[in-house]
């Protein structure tokens, strides 16, 4: 094959190829050597990152190409389905390019961080193998140009999340959390797979479609033949702002017309799908498919009601949490929604506040999740769980944004969130590391990683001591770099006005909701939920940070905490009073390995902190800074071109106020007078024990699932109340009772099978008789005769090679003589 791998059309293959290759190398070759495995893994993702940057640069600076119209990508034949050929391929459109800016970079940072974080773990090499596979799955999903390949990447990540959450499999809780994550997402994935299959089937039934397809372009962008009204005039031109503005205006006009009887640029498959009725619920096919796909995302992106797996996923090593929460797994759900947005919004005219079923469902789920998860986050003591709920809540923001049609804002928030959430998670990992270190130092009890088992019979979430923010405090003196970077991440998450990335993307979502709130009730509902969620977000972020880093240590572990390298000089001017007596700033012996390990953990934090600030500046509203490069770049991705809403100062002021209010509230409760050792948490004190316990038990949703969803199944397989058919004659007390499932299996199904088996067994017996007497008799006769002949004939075989040669020579002579006679 004559492929120029520097051609941007082929580059995406390489991007996903390198991490997968590293996985293979690590699993097959280098798994004995930790250093080699780390090098291979980091090298693989590093190469991917470089290629992604290249590709991104190319997408941005390629001027002769309208990327939305004419993507980078290539395809190859995958499989033949009946008369059709299913083609698999990669495609890079602006959305993918934007994702490629984030995913490999975040993954690379996580990999580097992991090298430091996982030091000394016996299964280190395998960890990096899984991590590479995870990254490979996410990149596959990102660059895939069809739903099936996307689903493969999706499932690969599902497997990796399972094996990585349960990575410390000697911990029962970790194992259970892995299973929980796997099963929960699997439930959702089944719906999603059904949706994909239904979509595939439906595309085949539409007139003008030669091949049933799952390709995004074919589904949502490419106009069906014959339906194009103005194919020569692309809907959107890239690169020329004026033309853009014109096109935008024009398109807005188009959009208004477009939901009349005719389309401006023609009909796509998705448009056709809205006209087909689904067999269920009396909705259109597009709606049904959209809902099914949405369920997939609800599982993957941990939306209510399938959000319960995500907090438990904190049992995995912290880099894994960062990977799941920021770079890869949960992003995938939102990414898929953005990608499929034209399908989800098919038939809706959301520019004019007319939403369809899917969007309303999506918006409701997102809004409920956003507010519910932020309420739960307030009541958590585990630093990682707080972040987990915050992730759920932020993802709720994105889903809600999609529900009201603001998909650019959703994508924008997705990327920003990935950066600051990866930062926060890794910073929390750094905190935990420091706390573990402190614990060992405080107790001098040996092991590198002390794993804390969850005691049995505890309904309330068990919080491992190093994770517990109630045991922290004053850590800013021990791990200043982490404290500062985490503060940056936290501010970004809280949406600190004007300077943080989180502010701009969140503000955009709120502005979109605000824009609709005046005209329709649905956006108003979303807006209220989101605003309240934002307030709580700012509050719990402040709580987490102040509890962790502020004040004085509330345990010995916190007093001795550290990453092994103490940067004293950073702290000296910071808080002299704390230095003086309370904080035990012991001068420990620091090895070069410790220092390296600490650097490996702190370097990614710095990089991501930078991004958590500056990644937002590309998406500031055009009316404020004159040009919104992100919108210009992303807009042509989907056929549904976003209409830039007019700038409105009110929502912006509102969101500023809310963020400051939340942070200020947190400071009032936790910062002004830090919580001392033994003191009750101010929120707990305010809410009272009942409400606090409600929060700590996650509103009893998990317990509800366990009792009412798992309970019947458990009864089904374990309640031994049924006597098997053979046992019924026996007296009651001698009967062996089995569970209902066993009864169905052994009593009913086995009986049927036994009966069928006996029929075939009798048939076989007859065949055997026939065979023995008639057929064998004939065959044996022939064989015996041949055997007799052979016994007679084998006497010529003496085993003497020279005698054989004599025969050969005789034959040779005969042939030679014949030949000579013939020639003569």
């Amino acid at each position, binding site marked *: 094959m004559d492929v120029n791998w520097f051609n941007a059309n082929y580059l995406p293959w390489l991007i996903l190829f390198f991490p997968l290759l590293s996985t293979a190398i690590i699993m097959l070759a280098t798994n004995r050597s930790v250093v080699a495995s780390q090098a291979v893994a980091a090298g693989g993702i590093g190469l991917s990152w470089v290629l992604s940057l290249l590709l991104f640069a190319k997408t941005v600076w390629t001027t002769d190409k309208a990327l939305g119209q004419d993507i980078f990508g290539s395809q190859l034949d995958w499989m033949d389905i009946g008369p059709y050929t299913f083609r698999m391929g990669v495609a890079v459109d602006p959305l993918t390019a934007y994702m490629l800016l984030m995913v490999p970079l975040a993954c690379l940072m996580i990999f580097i961080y992991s090298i430091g974080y996982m030091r000394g773990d016996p299964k280190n090499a395998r960890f990096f193998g899984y991590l590479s596979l995870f990254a490979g799955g996410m990149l596959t999903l990102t660059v895939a140009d069809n739903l099936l390949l996307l689903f493969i990447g999706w499932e690969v990540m599902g497997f990796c999340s399972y094996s990585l959450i349960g990575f410390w499999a000697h911990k029962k809780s970790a194992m259970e959390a892995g299973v929980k994550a796997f099963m929960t997402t699997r439930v959702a994935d089944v719906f999603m797979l059904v949706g994909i299959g239904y979509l595939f089937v439906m595309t085949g039934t539409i007139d003008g479609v030669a091949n049933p397809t799952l390709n995004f372009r074919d589904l949502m962008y490419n106009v069906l033949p014959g339906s194009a009204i103005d194919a020569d005039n692309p809907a959107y031109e890239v690169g020329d702002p004026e033309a853009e503005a014109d096109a935008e205006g024009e398109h807005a006009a188009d959009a208004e017309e477009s939901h009349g009887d005719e389309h401006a640029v023609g009909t796509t498959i998705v448009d056709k799908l809205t006209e087909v009725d689904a067999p269920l619920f009396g909705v259109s096919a597009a709606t049904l498919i959209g809902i099914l796909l949405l369920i997939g995302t609800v599982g993957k992106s941990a939306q209510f009601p399938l959000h319960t797996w995500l907090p438990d996923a904190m049992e995995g090593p912290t880099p894994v949490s960062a990977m799941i929460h920021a770079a890869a797994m949960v992003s995938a759900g939102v990414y898929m929604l953005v990608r499929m947005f034209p399908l989800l919004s098919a038939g809706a005219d959301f520019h004019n506040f007319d939403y369809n079923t899917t969007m309303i469902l999506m918006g409701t789920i997102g809004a409920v999740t956003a507010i519910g998860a932020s309420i739960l986050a307030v009541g958590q003591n585990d630093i990682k769980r707080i972040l987990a709920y915050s992730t759920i809540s932020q993802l709720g923001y994105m889903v809600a944004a999609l529900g009201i049609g603001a998909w650019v804002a959703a994508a924008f928030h997705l990327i920003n969130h990935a950066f600051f959430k990866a930062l926060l998670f890794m910073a929390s990992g750094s905190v935990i590391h420091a706390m573990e270190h402190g614990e060992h130092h405080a107790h001098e009890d040996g092991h590198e990683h002390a794993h804390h088992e969850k005691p049995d019979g505890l309904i309330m979430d068990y919080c491992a001591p190093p994770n517990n923010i109630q045991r922290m405090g004053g850590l800013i003196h021990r791990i200043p770099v982490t404290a500062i970077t985490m503060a940056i991440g936290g501010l970004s998450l809280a949406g600190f006005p004007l300077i943080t990335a989180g502010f701009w993307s969140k503000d955009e979502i709120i502005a979109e909701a605000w824009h609709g709130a005046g005209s329709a009730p649905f956006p108003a509902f979303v807006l209220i939920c989101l605003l309240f969620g934002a307030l709580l977000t700012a509050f719990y972020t402040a709580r987490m940070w102040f509890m962790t880093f502020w004040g004085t240590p509330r345990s010995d572990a916190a007093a001795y905490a550290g990453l092994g390298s103490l940067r004293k000089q950073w702290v000296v001017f910071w808080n002299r009073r704390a230095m003086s007596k309370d904080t035990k700033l012991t001068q420990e012996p620091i090895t070069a390995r410790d220092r390296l390990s600490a650097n490996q953990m702190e370097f990614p934090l710095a990089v991501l902190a930078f991004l958590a600030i500056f990644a937002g500046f590309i998406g500031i509203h055009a009316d404020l800074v004159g040009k919104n490069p992100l919108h210009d770049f992303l807009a042509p991705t989907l056929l549904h071109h976003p209409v830039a809403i007019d700038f409105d100062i009110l929502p912006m002021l509102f969101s500023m106020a809310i963020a400051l209010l939340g942070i200020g509230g947190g400071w009032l409760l936790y910062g002004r007078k830090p919580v001392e050792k033994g003191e009750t948490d101010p929120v707990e004190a305010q809410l009272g024990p009942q409400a606090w316990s409600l929060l700590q038990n996650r509103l009893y949703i998990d317990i509800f699932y366990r009792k009412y969803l798992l309970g019947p199944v458990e009864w089904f397989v374990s309640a031994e109340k049924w006597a098997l058919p053979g046992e019924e004659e026996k007296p009651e007390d001698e009967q062996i009772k089995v569970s209902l499932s066993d009864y169905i299996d052994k009593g009913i199904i086995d009986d049927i099978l036994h009966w069928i088996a006996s029929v075939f067994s009798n048939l076989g017996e007859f065949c055997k008789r026939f065979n023995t007497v008639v057929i064998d008799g004939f065959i044996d006769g022939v064989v015996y005769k041949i055997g007799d002949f052979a016994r007679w004939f*084998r006497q010529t*075989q003496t*085993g*003497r*090679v*020279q005698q054989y*040669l004599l025969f050969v*020579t005789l034959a040779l002579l005969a042939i030679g003589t014949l030949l000579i006679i013939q020639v003569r």
Partner: protein
Amino acid sequence: MVPLWLYLAVAAALFSIGMFGVLTRRNAIAILMSIELMLNAVNINLVAFWRYQENPANLSGQVFAIFVFVVAAAEAAVGLALIISIYRNRQSVIAEDVDVMKW
């Protein structure tokens, strides 16, 4: 130049001698030696025909002779290894004694 047929006659004689050895010697090593004689007879033919063609720049004869060398070397190595192996197992190098492959 010596006429071609003399070479051919010598080769024929050498081949027949080798064949006689192969058919009649009892010792396996002697058989191997006789085979070498036969191969040499073939080589004489090849080279003689090469020399007496009109265009000796066509080197096929020599090349084939070289391949015969290779085959002979391989055959000698494997053959002797076989003989030594047989001797180890059966304490005999007489070809007739090795007749387990009969019926």
